C-alpha cells in the first residue's frame, strides 16, 4: 500500500470530524484513484507509461479482423507454414467460449457467443512467462511494462509456453525461411525486410511493437483498424488517455483475471 496505515487512519479521523460520518469518509478516501494507487503496486513503470490495449469487438467489421492480423504478421515476418503443427501466430481470433473459457453460459446472447474476439499477448502486469524463463530471454520492460522477447538469448526450452495461460506464444519448430514464406527463385520472400526473421528453435509472440512505439507510431494492428475504434492503444497510467476513458465508461473484461496475471488487454462487452 502506498498509503501508510497511520496516514489512512489520520485521514479517516479528519474526514469524520469534517464530514460527520465515518462511512462517508471511507467512501471518499477509497475513490477510484486511491484504490488504483494502492492495488497497482505490482508494477510501476519508470517513465509513467504502461501500455495497454482495449479491444472493442462490436466495432470490428469482418474485413478488419483479417486486415489487422495480416498487418501484424506482415510487419513482423510471421511465417505461415500452412499446417497447424508448425503454426506461428501473434494475433488471431477465437469465439467467446474459447477466448474467455468458463465465462459464458448456454443461454447467452447468441451474437456475443459467435462474435470473433481478437486475441494476442496480454502483456500481463505479472507475467507467468517472465517468471519461469531461465535466461531472462523474455522480460518485462521497466519503461513501459510491455513483455518482450530477446530471440538471441532464448534457448528454446518452451517453459514460457507451458506457463502462459493464454496460448499467446509460438515456437519456431523449423526454420521460418525454409517453408514459412513464399519462395521466388529458390529464395524466401520476406514481407518486411526492415524487421528480422527468427531462427528455428526460439519462441516468439506479440510484442506491442516496440520498434514502432520508439518512432511514435501505434502498433501495426491498431493502425490497420484506424478510425474505427475497434482497437485502442494507450497509456494506462495517464488518466486522460483514451484507454482509461473507455475503461472508466464501459463494461470491460480481461481474460482469466482469476489467475492474477492482470492482463493489459481489455475487452469491451456490449459496447
Amino acid at each position, binding site marked *: 500500500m502506498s498509503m501508510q496505515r497511520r496516514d489512512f487512519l489520520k485521514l479517516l479521523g479528519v474526514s469524520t470530524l469534517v464530514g460527520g460520518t465515518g462511512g462517508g469518509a471511507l467512501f471518499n478516501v477509497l475513490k477510484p484513484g486511491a484504490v488504483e494507487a494502492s492495488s497497482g503496486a505490482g508494477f510501476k513503470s519508470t517513465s509513467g507509461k504502461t501500455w495497454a490495449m482495449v479491444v472493442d469487438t462490436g466495432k470490428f467489421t469482418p474485413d478488419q479482423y483479417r486486415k489487422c492480423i495480416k498487418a501484424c504478421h506482415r510487419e513482423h515476418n510471421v511465417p505461415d507454414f500452412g499446417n497447424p503443427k508448425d503454426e506461428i501466430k501473434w494475433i488471431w481470433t477465437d469465439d467467446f467460449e474459447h477466448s474467455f*473459457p468458463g465465462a459464458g453460459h448456454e443461454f447467452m446472447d447468441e451474437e456475443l457467443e459467435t462474435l470473433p474476439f481478437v486475441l494476442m499477448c496480454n502483456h500481463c502486469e505479472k507475467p507467468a512467462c517472465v517468471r*519461469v524463463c531461465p535466461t531472462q530471454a523474455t522480460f518485462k520492460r521497466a519503461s513501459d511494462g510491455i513483455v518482450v522477447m530477446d530471440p538471441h538469448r532464448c534457448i528454446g526450452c518452451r517453459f514460457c509456453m507451458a506457463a502462459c495461460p493464454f496460448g499467446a506464444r509460438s515456437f519456431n519448430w*523449423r*526454420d521460418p525461411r525454409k517453408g514459412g514464406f513464399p519462395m521466388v527463385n529458390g529464395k524466401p520472400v520476406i514481407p518486411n525486410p526492415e524487421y528480422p526473421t527468427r531462427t528455428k528453435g526460439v519462441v516468439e509472440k506479440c510484442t506491442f511493437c516496440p520498434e514502432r512505439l520508439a518512432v511514435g507510431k501505434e502498433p501495426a494492428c491498431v493502425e490497420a483498424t484506424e478510425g474505427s475504434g475497434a482497437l485502442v492503444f494507450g497509456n494506462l497510467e495517464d488518466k486522460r488517455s483514451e484507454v482509461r476513458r473507455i475503461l472508466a465508461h464501459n463494461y470491460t473484461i480481461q481474460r482469466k483475471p482469476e489467475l*492474477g496475471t492482470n492482463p493489459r488487454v481489455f475487452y469491451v462487452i456490449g459496447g
Partner: protein
Amino acid sequence: MLDKAISGSRTYWAWLGFLSLISAAGFIAYLFQFNYGLGLTGMSRDVTWGFYIAQFTFLVGVAASAVMLVIPYYLHDYKKFGKIVILGEFLAVSAVSMCILFIFVDLGQPMRVMNVVLHPTPNSVMFWDMIVLSGYLGLNIVIGWHTLHAEKKGVAPSAWLKPLIYLSIPWAVSIHTVTAFLYAGIPGRHLWLTAIMAARFLASAFAAGPALLILLSLIVRNVSKFDPGKEPLQTLGKIVTYAMTANVFFFLLEVFTAFYSGIPSHQHSLQYLFFGLEGHNALVPWMWSAAALAIISLTLLITPGLKKNEDILGIACITVFVSTWIDKGMGLVVGGFIPNPMERVTEYTPTFPEVLITLGIWAIGFLILSVLYKVAISVREELAGN
C-alpha cells in the same frame, strides 16, 4: 578401478556393442532433428512438451531411488543394504545423465544451453532444477566411486564423505520437489496446478526407482558371481509396496477433488486421459493399461507371502515400473497440455525420429549403468575371490 570396465567377457562386450548401436541410431536421428528443428517431433504449438520431457520427469524419479537405500543404510544402520547401496548410487548417476540428455535434446537452441548459467535467474524453477540435478549427479559420482574405492582397498571411506552422504538425502528429495515445481507452479494448467504434485512425484519415484533396482539386482545375480542377497530385495520390495500404495492413493485424491468439486476445468485433462475429450482419445488405452498394471502390481505386492517368490516380485516390479512410466511420463506431461488453455483439443503422438532419439538416450543411460555396474561387480567378485 576404471580398468575393470574394459576387461570383460564376450557377452559384456556384445551388450555394450548392442547399446552403442542403438545410441548411434539415436544420435543420427538427433543430427536430423538438430538440422531441421524440433518440428521433426510430434510436438506442436499446443502440446509443447512431449516424449523427451516425459522421460526426463520419470527419470528424475528413478534417480532418487538411491536415497531409499542410503536412508536405511546410513541413518538406520540397516547393514543388509551395504551390498547394494552402490547399485542405487550408480543407478542415480545413470538416470541423472539421461535426464540431462533429455533436456538437451528438447532444447530448440541447444548450443545456447550455457545461457542458463550466464544469466542465472533465481525466479525460474528451471534454473534451480539445473542446480539440483547437476549437484545430485556430482554427489552420487563422488560418493559411489569413493566408497567403492575404499571397499576395494579394504579401508573405511574417508571421513569427509559422511557429510556428503547425509547431504545427498535431502538433495534427492530436492530434485523431485524442484522438478514437481516445474509443473505445480504454473497458472492455468489444471492437471498440474496441485499442491500434492511434489508428494506424488516422491511417491511414484520411490516406487519406480527401487522397483528398477530390484530388477537390476536380479539381473546382476544372474550374470555375475555377485549376489545382492535375498533379504535386501525383500526389504526393497516392502519400500516399493508402500510407495506404490501412496502413489495410487495420491492419484485418487486428485480424482476426488476434480470430480466431487464438479469444477469442469479441473476435470478436463483427467477426462481426456481416461475417456477422451471431444472425440480425441489417443492416450485412453495407455492410461487404462497404467491403471490395470497398478492394480496388478498392488495385488502382487500386498497379498501376504506372494512377493517372497522372487519371480513374482520381479513381475510386480515390472508392472510398477511400466505403470508409473506411463502415468508420470506421457500421462502427466502430455495430459497437462490437453485441452489447451483455450479449452481446445490438440493431440500428440511422438514421431519415429523422436522415439529413436529417446531409445538412443536410454541406451546411453544403460551404457553408463553397465560400465559402472561392471566396475562395482568386478570389485566385489575380486573381494569375494580373495
